[in-house]
């Protein structure tokens, strides 16, 4: 116990040192348009067990801190996410896991008076660089929300919303996208006969899968899922989990979840956040069977408040 507490203190001081370094590095490595060289050395998190090579990295966070006004949402996150993998983020409520997830495609912009420090890049593009094209970013990094939120439009229109924003107007092409995405999201069989029905007439689980299909329609590199199953029953949850497993490899998926069994079932790597900090990040099997940090152990064994 005592030893672990010590290492925690050591980690803190290390990360502080890292932060001092990481800011100038990110500034140097970022060119004028916010591009970061993909082969530049990746800062590995000190709490990470298996390093990810530069070419396998899609998301790089180096000393990333997010402020709501003067309050820190997440603090000093250094974490890399591997292309094509499923990464789960777990942690107690208010620990900043959603803040971090939403920072990746800048959904936090909707909240006034926020600012960031440190580096966060997706696919070699600095997310918070002023030249970043938000439309491109969000189309590359799709998002699925906690509650199913289909638009009050037909199923067809829901799926084609993104492609239409990209300027695709060709009816045949749109039809093709709709079919492909609905098949990918494992909902095609259920809705293929009434694509013109309102999306709100679907059940919650179907709506969530439709939202995933809608996200896939913009052809993203990544899909961020913010507690995608918390509003669903176990059956619908199982379907979504199957879907995540099926999408793995094609898309990089980051899942925020409160459900540790779910994290264990679907993810390759798991990150544990607590009080705005990244406590532990590693292979899911290892993290759940042999946590290195005391907080992680407390949390996954249920001793944590």
């Amino acid at each position, binding site marked *: 116990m005592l030893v672990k507490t010590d290492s925690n203190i050591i980690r803190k001081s290390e990360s502080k040192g890292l932060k001092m370094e990481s800011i100038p590095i990110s500034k140097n490595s970022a060119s004028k348009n916010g591009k970061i060289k993909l082969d530049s050395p990746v800062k590995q998190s000190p709490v990470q067990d298996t390093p990810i090579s530069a070419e396998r990295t899609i998301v790089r966070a180096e000393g990333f801190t997010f402020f709501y006004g003067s309050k820190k949402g997440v603090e000093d996150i250094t974490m890399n996410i591997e292309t094509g993998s499923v990464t789960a983020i777990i942690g107690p409520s208010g620990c900043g896991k959603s803040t971090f997830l939403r920072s990746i495609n800048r959904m936090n912009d909707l909240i006034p008076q926020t600012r960031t420090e440190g580096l966060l890049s997706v696919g070699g593009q600095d997310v918070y660089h002023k030249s970043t094209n938000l439309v491109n970013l*969000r189309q590359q990094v799709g998002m699925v929300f906690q*509650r199913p939120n289909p638009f009050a439009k037909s199923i067809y229109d829901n799926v084609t919303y*993104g492609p239409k924003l990209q300027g695709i107007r060709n009816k045949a092409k749109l039809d093709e996208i709709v079919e492909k995405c609905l098949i990918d999201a494992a909902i095609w069989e259920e809705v293929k006969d009434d694509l013109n029905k309102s999306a709100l007439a679907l059940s919650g689980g179907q709506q969530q899968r439709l939202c995933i299909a809608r996200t896939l329609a*913009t052809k993203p590199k990544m899909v961020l899922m913010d507690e995608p199953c918390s509003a669903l029953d176990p059956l619908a949850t199982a379907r979504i989990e199957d879907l995540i497993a099926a999408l793995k490899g094609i898309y990089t998926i980051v899942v925020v979840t409160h459900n540790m069994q779910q994290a264990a079932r679907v993810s390759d790597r798991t990150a544990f956040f607590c009080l705005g900090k990244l406590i532990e990040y590693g292979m899911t099997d290892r993290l759940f069977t042999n946590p290195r940090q005391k907080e992680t152990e407390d949390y996954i064994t249920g001793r944590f408040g």
Partner: protein
Amino acid sequence: MQVRIRQAWNHLFTILSSGSIVLLVAALLLFLIPMLRKGIPAVVFRGTVEFRKMQAELFDRGDTMALQKETEQTWQARQEIYTILDHFSRGIDTEKLTDEAKDLYRDYGQILRYQETPKEQYTELRGRAKEIRDHLLDAFESTDKDEIAAHLDAIEALRDEAAFSGTPVEKMFTMTGDFRKLIATVDLSKRDIFADELEVVKEELYNLFGPRPDEQTPQLAMKRFGATRWDVAEKHLTFLVWQEKWIPSDDGQTLVAKQVRRDDPLEGSFAGTELAPLFSLTEKILKDTMKPRFTLYWQYFIDDSTPGHYFGGVGPEVLGTLLLTLLAMCFSIPLGVISAAYLVEYAGDNLIVKIIRICINTLAGVPSIVYGLFGMAFFVAYITKQPGVLSASMTLALLVLPVIIRASEEAIRAVPQTYREAAMGLGAGKFRSFLTVTLPAAGPGILTGIILSLSRAAGETAPILFAGAAALAPIPDFGGKWWLQETRALSYGCYDITVGDKLAMMVPHKQFGMVMTLIILVLCLNVIAIVIRSRMSKKLRGM
């Protein structure tokens, strides 16, 4: 015990809330029923033959042959009344007799000149004719029966069959004879009183029956027809038969008004005269002279009216109200929704935005007459340079703008944030996500604001008072600059009739007909909006 009390509270709440709904419906009916009861007679009433004449002449409607037959029948019935009137008025209306005598003398002079009578003979005959005329005029003017007799005798003395046979002078002799017979029954001392009263009787008969067939068609359309409605006819009949007499009160200190019949044997002005039978006769045969018939005048809603709203419908008023309302909506909806969108989506929460919000809330409570004066002082004076549809509708738009902004703001704010997140997550910009996701979702709420303001814009009088409404404005000329023309409006027309003059008393159906039309119009507009809204929200709810 506690459960009991809680249940009692529950029941009380249920009773109170359902009771208030019942009360609301009752109040609505209480408000609507009298309006409709008074307004419906504008459309459903007993139309007289005059109404059918008016419809044929002004609007080209109805069966001409049947109408002609009807007109003849009624004129025959009316003839009886006119015979009595004419006979009596000859003795009273000396001005007419005087004119007649003068005309006859002038005609005679012309005839003499035409026949190229030798000068001496001409002078002589003309002199005699002049003498006869002067005697006649003196006789007409006099109120002393002896003096009149003397003048008439003098004329008789001048009678010369040989010289005047077949000339206008002979007619003068006939007049002399008639007049002698007439004054035998007339109390000459009352001639002045009779003359005044007779004017009233003639006017009321005119109001009942319109101009006589041999009379020239009057210029005013209002004067061209008698009472077109049975209720109006009955009203005029009352004015014809009853007179107001001022008699000393019981204590003899003051005078009090008393309604008496004009042919009342004791107090009536025409008691015992030759005119007396006219009143009961008119009462008796009024139905034959007017031929009332149940009429459904649905064209009331589209017909033009004669100047002064006396006859016809409220078509131009309906058109004007629709124009003003819809145009006002065209201005205020985009402006209001854009403002609301700005306030919710773009503006932060700083001091200026707070002040703007306070201003909007205050504007919603400003009395409408203030908007009217502003419309006159700004839109009329600086933008359109003349009162018209455009300035009036801009004023109305300004009036309803705060309502629309507030309702839209609430509706846009009520759209779940997840909708915006979803749209943005798919790469939509702020404007795009507002236009394609937020606005459709806020649609029903915005429409609620529109419904509220639609009714208000349609019914307001004060804002358009100075900005472009006129009681007798021309019908909009859609080929030209109709937006610069003044227009009629239901609300303003109703106001105008009410404050206008005695017209409100004579055509109450018109006044309430306008109110009814306004209610129906607003109801129709609202029903359309409500149907659109329910379709929208059904679609939003995924049904």
